[in-house]
């Protein structure tokens, strides 16, 4: 099958971006929005065609010996560093990239449609659609990357799109600082990514994914056992690359940007900070999975970070009061699940089910988390606030939204038959297979997930019935409800996709079967947590407040996200700005510049010092003359004779 048409999924959005960016202000808002959405629709169709043909096509060469082939649809040289180190721009079709094509285009299209309603009347509407196109372009470019440097390029581009979209309301200081924070934190992580690439390419002399992953042993061996600070350089390289992924995927301790990123428009949060960009880290590790699994140490780091993040984010999510914050921490926690799943995956454990589970969860999570965010957007749209305290009893006003949100919550909590159940089950299976510690840990976090999601749900839709005054909340317009309905349906059915057949680490088919032991346990936990949440939050009561009071310290710490932001604030302002930048600036002005000024001053004062030589008296002049001649002679005599 000829896949070269796939290139259109990149071209259409970038053209759209340039078009809307340059002449957008001349168009009416409606035209711009519709144009952008239509373009996205076409992109989506093409992406679906490509992905579905890839998965289900029966052409010769797509599957050889049961292994799905990686297809390099195109690969053009973009920049040659050396003979082998070449940045190419291309499209690599393989199971995960095909899957990502679907995820990205689906969510993006939904967000495009949704935004027609949500962003209606906003200043800079055209700009918004331009940025959405840019983001879609970058994200698609990222997932289809044929080499790690292409990925890095698009990695940076999604970073900047994210920056631009978070800072969309650029007159609000909070949005500006959130966007800045997001960019800088991820940039810091990208530094690790870049260094990782440098090290990796230095030893393996290639950027190409296919070359790297088809023979991972050779890649590792190319370092020749070189070590740096006691660890093998390959472990360094892979860990640093993972650092890039961790930054993008908001892993602890690089997660701090994500909650703040909620300052952006809610559809943007749904698209970028829930469904697509934030899973780039997971995708990155998955992309290099064959190499990663040869470095045990790095895998352990990944697992530990994933687990810590999962627990941390879940804990914080339990006490947040801003609905988007809750969803943000929930996102962090869920991505940590995926990361952990990759970390615990080993080819020999259940045929590497962790890998598949991670990708599966990525897929389902994208759908239900986008759903949740879009619902949250509809709610915010209706209530004009992010705070839970301003909400309550909304089920009466917004029935569609209520159901959609409930479906999302059930999906994320892992209740059969919703999508989350299947993917989370596989993750837990993988975790238990690696070590019960991780398994139990993740089960607990899964329980917490169910709890805070239902806390959120009840707080919004039940709890109390505040006085909404003269603007009663009402159901969102059709453009906004349609995506909710669509995504709800997907969240319900996505679990039944035979993922094991499609996406596995070695691209061979994998027979999955529900491990009822694990699944049962986790379902019980989830249901328990939901019941707990129901008891606590269904109706307004004082129990939750009392509970919070009983452990006020912990509660406050969790509410303040365990002071991570303060820590960063301290490091950036007190250490980097106050202890490095300012002293350097001072040093530059006073010492370095001062030295040159001093040279000038010394010359000047020397000029004053010598003026006495010319005292104006003839006899003085003669003295100097005579002394000069005599000294000249005397010194010469002493030196020579």
């Amino acid at each position, binding site marked *: 099958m000829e896949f070269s048409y796939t290139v259109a999924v990149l071209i259409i959005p970038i053209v759209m971006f340039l078009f809307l960016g340059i002449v957008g202000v001349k168009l009416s808002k409606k035209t711009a929005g519709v144009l952008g959405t239509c373009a996205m629709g076409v992109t989506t169709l093409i992406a679906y065609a490509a992905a579905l043909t890839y998965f289900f096509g029966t052409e010769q060469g797509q599957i050889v010996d049961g292994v799905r082939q990686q297809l390099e649809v195109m690969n053009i040289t973009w920049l040659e560093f050396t003979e082998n180190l070449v940045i190419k721009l291309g499209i690599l079709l393989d199971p995960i990239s095909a899957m990502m094509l679907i995820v990205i285009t689906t969510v993006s299209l939904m967000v495009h449609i949704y935004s027609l309603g949500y962003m209606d009347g906003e200043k800079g509407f055209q700009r918004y659609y331009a940025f959405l196109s840019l983001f879609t372009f970058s994200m698609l470019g990222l997932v289809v990357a044929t080499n790690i440097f292409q990925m890095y390029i698009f990695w940076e581009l999604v970073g900047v799109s994210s920056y631009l979209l978070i800072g969309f309301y650029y007159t609000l200081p909070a949005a500006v*600082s959130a966007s800045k924070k997001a960019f800088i934190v991820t940039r810091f992580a990208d530094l690790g990514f*870049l260094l990782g690439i440098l090290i990796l*390419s230095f030893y393996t002399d290639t950027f190409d994914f296919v070359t790297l992953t088809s023979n991972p042993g050779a890649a590792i061996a190319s370092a020749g056992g070189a070590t740096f600070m006691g660890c093998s350089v390959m472990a360094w390289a892979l860990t640093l690359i993972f650092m890039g992924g961790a930054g993008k995927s908001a892993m602890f301790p690089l997660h701090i940007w994500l909650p703040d990123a909620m300052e952006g428009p809610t559809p943007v949060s749904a698209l970028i900070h829930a469904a697509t960009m934030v899973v780039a880290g997971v995708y990155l590790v998955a992309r290099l999975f064959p190499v990663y699994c040869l470095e045990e140490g790095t895998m352990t780091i990944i697992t530990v970070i994933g687990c810590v993040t999962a627990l941390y984010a879940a804990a914080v999510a339990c006490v947040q009061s801003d609905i988007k914050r809750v969803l943000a921490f929930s996102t962090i926690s869920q991505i940590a699940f995926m990361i952990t799943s990759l970390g615990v995956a080993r080819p020999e454990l259940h045929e590497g089910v962790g890998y598949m589970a991670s990708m599966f969860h990525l897929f389902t999570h994208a759908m239900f988390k986008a759903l949740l965010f879009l619902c949250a957007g509809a709610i915010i749209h209706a209530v004009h606030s992010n705070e839970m305290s301003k909400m309550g009893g909304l089920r009466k006003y917004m029935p569609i939204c209520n159901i959609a949100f409930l479906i999302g919550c059930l999906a994320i909590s892992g209740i059969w038959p919703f999508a989350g159940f299947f993917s989370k089950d596989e993750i837990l299976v993988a975790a238990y297979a690696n070590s019960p510690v991780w398994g139990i840990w993740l089960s607990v976090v899964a329980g917490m997930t169910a709890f805070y999601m239902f806390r959120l749900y009840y707080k919004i839709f039940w709890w109390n019935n505040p006085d909404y005054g003269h603007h009663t909340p009402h159901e969102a317009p059709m453009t906004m409800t349609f995506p909710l309905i669509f995504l709800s349906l997907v969240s319900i059915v996505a679990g039944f996709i035979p993922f094991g057949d499609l996406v596995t680490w070695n691209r061979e088919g994998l027979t999955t079967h529900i491990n009822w032991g694990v699944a049962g346990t986790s379902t019980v936990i989830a249901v328990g947590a939901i019941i707990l949440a129901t008891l606590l939050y269904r109706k307004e009561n004082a129990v939750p407040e009392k509970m919070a009071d009983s452990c006020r310290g912990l509660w406050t710490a969790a509410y303040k996200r365990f002071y991570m932001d303060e820590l960063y604030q301290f490091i950036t302002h007190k250490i980097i700005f106050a202890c490095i930048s300012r002293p*350097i600036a001072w040093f530059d002005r006073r010492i370095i510049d001062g030295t040159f000024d001093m040279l000038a001053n010394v010359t000047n004062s020397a000029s004053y010092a010598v003026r006495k030589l010319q005292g104006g008296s003839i006899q003085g002049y003669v003295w100097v003359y005579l002394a000069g001649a005599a000294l000249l002679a005397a010194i010469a005599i002493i030196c020579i004779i």
Partner: protein
Amino acid sequence: MIWSNVLIYFVIVPLLMLGGLALSKSVKQVRAVAVTGATALMLLAAYLVIEFLSMRAAGDVSPMLFTDSWTWFEPLNINLALGVDGISVVMIVLSAFIVFAGVFASWNINPLPKEYFMWFCLLSTGVFGFFISIDMFTMFMFYEVALIPMYLLIGVWGSGNKNYSAMKLTLMLMGGSAFLMLGLIGIYFHSAPEGGQLTMNILEIAENNAIPHEWQYYLFPMTFVGFGVLGAMFPFHTWSPDGHASAPTAVSMLHAGVLMKLGGYGCFRIAIYLMPWAAGELAWIFLLLTGISVVYGAFSACVQTDLKYINAYSSVSHCGMVLFAILMLNTTAMTGAVLQMLSHGLMTALFFALIGMIYGRTHTRDIRKMGGLMTIMPFLGVGYVIAGLASLGLPGLSGFVAEMSIFVGSFQHADMFHRVLTVMACCSIVITAVYILRVVGKLLFGAVQDAHHKELTDAEWHERLATITLIVAVAAIGCFPNFFSGIISEAAEPIMKLFA
């Protein structure tokens, strides 16, 4: 015949402009002459690129093309020797672009527009002359020709503490060129083996490769530092912040955009090319210094509050990267260095142009006193954001390809020391992001700080033209880097083979 060489016109056109300006009577005529000249230079540059590429495509593999030589000072074997390779070609194109944009950026210069453009032309003459020469004397002459107009351009048309800044800039740069002159004469006297004909021609000197090692040991630092001062090498960079802060818009553009490139280009073309042995031996010292520049400039920029200071320190950082890469002595890094020169030239010119335009409206450059300008002047705001993104290395704009070439190239070095320094230099990309976003956040975003700013207008047509020219150039390099890097690496490769 001298007129049959296309290169000489790069000097003749600015000189004709100079004459035309001297004769022109009104501001309109001055502008007309300036625009005509700048356009002619652009066309010439385009013609040169096409000719150059077609000659290369036809299989001409000589190190320099369009070479010609006319005896000038016969006793010292000084020739007016011209020639370009890929590196000079791209530098010429860069200069043409910036001169073009500079003319439009200084459209409303006041007072004395005629004199202003005359100095401007003299400066351009020096710059182009430097890039087309392959004779050390001629190069040096043009180098100084390019430096001295800065004094008056800053002194007369500048702002702030301009007397001090102009004097400091001139003296420090001339200080550098003092060392340089000694180095060049030293090279001249060792340019040929015992008894051979001494020469100033770079190609011949390189071919002779006769400079004794013990002399290289002294001459290399002299020439490198001499050019390095102009390349804002730590610790000789302090002219840059003050100078740029005081200079008028187009002068900052030209200075940061082109003049500072003379430093990097000279370091490469003279210090490294002619004294490969010493370059290999002594590179580590300068690598340390330039490595420091890279990080140091970036950190300093983080806490500045004056827009031009921020940019000046950012230039220290970026230009440090150029020298850093040159010293890595391999083709990839060298290609990156030249790309970085291109990229830095364009984006800093863009920055300074925009800063000048903003300053012309708000009459302040203190970022604490401005804010929310994006709503007031969206065009300038968007331009600034693009410049900022280019500066912090966004793919698709020029900064990225340059920096990546440098990092990848530098990291290919077999020596651990070099790789550790590379890692250090890489850190600058984060710090760059910090200060760029800090400025963008404070300057363009947020609420409008000063009510008076609300009445300000967006860019006028000539400002738009200048900005768009530069943005297009930045994006062109960023999107199609292989074209540029191909030209450059082709030129750099034979030279870097000396170090293999």
